[in-house]
């Protein structure tokens, strides 16, 4: 008789089959990441932070790090009058990039930035590696990305557009960005994630952001890779006093998309705006995980996420706001609203507040429901077809978030995709 022992089998995270490129971050960071990866497994739904997102589809694949080639990027250009950086599979493509940035701004590939003292000071400083598979994977393997350093008092005259294009089958991109906005500076950054002839490929991007005293940074982000691609994005942000940080995340496609926004507000009088919208169909799974950590008093944060979920798709929202003990006079607002368009679609929404200070004003709310049928009837009674009435109402629902985007060209680009993908008519 043999004895069967049901001991858990330890399965190391081995997503990368082939990588002929060496990670460019410091040996110290790489060694640390490597040893973390040796000791952990892919998170499962038993891990609280991944409770509603199964990673089996990613874990069962083997990805390759490779440079890719994209000939025509015209359909990915979100806005024209800007500085543009183009990355293919996580590698900078300088031929496709354009525009010369004004003085006072450093914008270079991270593999040229290792001698820059600002870069070495900030890279990896706040990013948690322990127990974080994707952060560690990125830190160990990242071969390219952009280092943007906006000097003190510099105001970027035009937005900086960063386009990332994923190509070929089973590709992994470990794009790694560092954005440092010095005192009194101001910048607007547009990020677009796309795919071209890519299947089952994976973007694992980490962006570290430092918004120093009285600096103002806005990021508009469009995620539009195809419905077989995976995307894990982590934004690790630190805000110093009197600063403003705004990020608008618009998720339009992707098989599994996970967005981690970790915002640490360490200075007083800061303003933080997190807006997001996700429009899903098919079997898509989109998970927005946000943390706003108020460590200093007299700050304000606003968070608005709205989604429309169709077919068999699933949306997850987990928003957490911490107000630390000494962070008095905080105003923190968080709202998540969802519309389900089919009986088989799912939403898991978990807004959380953890407050240790006693003089704060915080609120959070979450709603998930269907379109207001009374309103649909009202519009039809005026002569609109049922389809038009529903489209109009979905558009209005989503537009609440899209109108937070100030750049009209970015909005028009999004409206165009919504028109192509969902046949919705939205306008400014």
């Amino acid at each position, binding site marked *: 008789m043999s004895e069967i022992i049901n001991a858990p089998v330890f399965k190391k995270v081995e997503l990368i089959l082939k990588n002929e490129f060496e990670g460019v971050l410091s040996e110290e960071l790489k060694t640390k990441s490597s040893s973390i990866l040796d000791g952990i497994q892919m998170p499962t739904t038993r891990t609280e932070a991944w409770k509603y997102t199964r990673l089996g589809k990613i874990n069962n694949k083997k990805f390759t790090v490779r440079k890719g080639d994209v000939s025509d990027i015209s359909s990915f250009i979100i806005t024209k009058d800007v500085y543009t950086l183009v990355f293919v599979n996580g590698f900078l493509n300088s031929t496709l990039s354009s525009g010369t940035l004004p003085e006072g701004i450093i914008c270079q590939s991270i593999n040229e930035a290792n001698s820059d003292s600002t870069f070495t000071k900030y890279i990896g400083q706040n990013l948690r590696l322990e127990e974080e598979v994707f952060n560690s994977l990125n830190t160990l393997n990242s071969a390219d990305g952009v280092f943007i350093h906006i000097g003190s008092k510099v105001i970027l005259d035009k937005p900086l557009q960063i386009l990332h294009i994923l190509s070929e089958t089973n590709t992994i991109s470990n794009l790694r960005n560092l954005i440092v906005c010095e005192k009194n500076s101001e910048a607007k950054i547009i990020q677009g994630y796309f795919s071209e002839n890519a299947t089952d490929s994976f973007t694992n991007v980490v962006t570290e952001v430092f918004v120093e005293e009285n600096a103002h940074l806005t990021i508009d982000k469009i995620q539009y890779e195809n419905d077989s691609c995976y995307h894990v994005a982590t934004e690790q942000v630190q805000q110093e006093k009197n600063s403003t940080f705004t990020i608008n995340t618009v998720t339009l496609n992707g098989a599994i998309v996970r967005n981690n926004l970790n915002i640490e507000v360490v200075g007083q009088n800061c303003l933080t705006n997190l807006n997001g919208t996700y429009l899903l169909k098919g079997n898509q799974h989109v998970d927005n995980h946000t943390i706003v950590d108020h460590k200093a008093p007299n700050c304000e944060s606003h968070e608005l996420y709205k989604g429309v979920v169709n077919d068999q798709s699933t949306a997850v929202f987990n928003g957490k706001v911490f107000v630390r003990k000494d962070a008095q006079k905080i105003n923190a607002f968080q709202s998540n609203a969802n519309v389900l368009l089919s009986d088989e679609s799912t939403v898991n929404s978990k807004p959380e507040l953890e407050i240790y200070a006693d003089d704060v004003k915080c609120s959070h709310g979450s709603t998930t429901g269907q379109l207001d049928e009374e309103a649909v009837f*009202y519009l039809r009674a005026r*002569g609109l077809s*049922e389809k038009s009435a529903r489209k109009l109402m979905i558009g209005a629902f989503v537009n609440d978030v899209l109108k937070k985007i100030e750049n009209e060209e970015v909005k028009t680009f999004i409206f165009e995709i919504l028109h192509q993908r969902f046949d919705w008519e939205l306008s400014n």
Partner: protein
Amino acid sequence: MITIKNLHASIDGKEILKGLNLEVKPGEVHAIMGPNGAGKSTLASVLAGREEYEITEGTVDFDGKDLLDLKTEDRAREGLFLAFQYPIEIPGVSNINFLRAALNEIREYRGEEPISAKDFLILVREKSAIVELDPKLASRSVNEGFSGGEKKRNEIFQMAMLNPKLAILDETDSGLDIDALRIVANGVNKLKSKDNATIVITHYQRLLDYIIPDFVHVLYDGKIVKTGTKELALDLEERGYDWIKEEMSL
């Protein structure tokens, strides 16, 4: 214009309309009065095409078309308009944008070209003046944050924009003060022509001081039990409905 014959309608298995007959000709104004629960709003809902109601018997002919066979939007496109008793607030949907879309779908249905942006704006200006609706309100989200009076004026503004053959005003006077009532009634009167018709559903006689009906009908227990002229409304105001009940049971 509209001929309703022996209309029976029920909701959740409960019969509300029990054999209603009514004929309205172009150029006419009909008032329908009656006590609570008589079926006044049900009649409006059934004519507009609310799906919760089940039609068990009867016919409704609307200018040669079988109205009950048409979808809600097609009834509107054929020229039927319902001014809601409780206009719906629709956050984020602009009043003007949706009206333009509606107008164009109506025009498409009738084989007409879409209205140009310029002509549309002229129309908005002209029609909002009829009900003294601030053009700023006209371009806000549908009824969002509107006062009770503004909502009712917006209903008549939409009616003016869509220029229906038959308008059904469902308790349009409810919740209106006397000034708003006058404005709304004036609006309706200005839109009146020899080619269109109006059905005014109301609880109170006072609206009929402003919108003079050609006929007054008393709806009671799902049927029209009495028809008269505007004097009947005054009678009802003074004596209530009990005498009709008594007359009925005789």
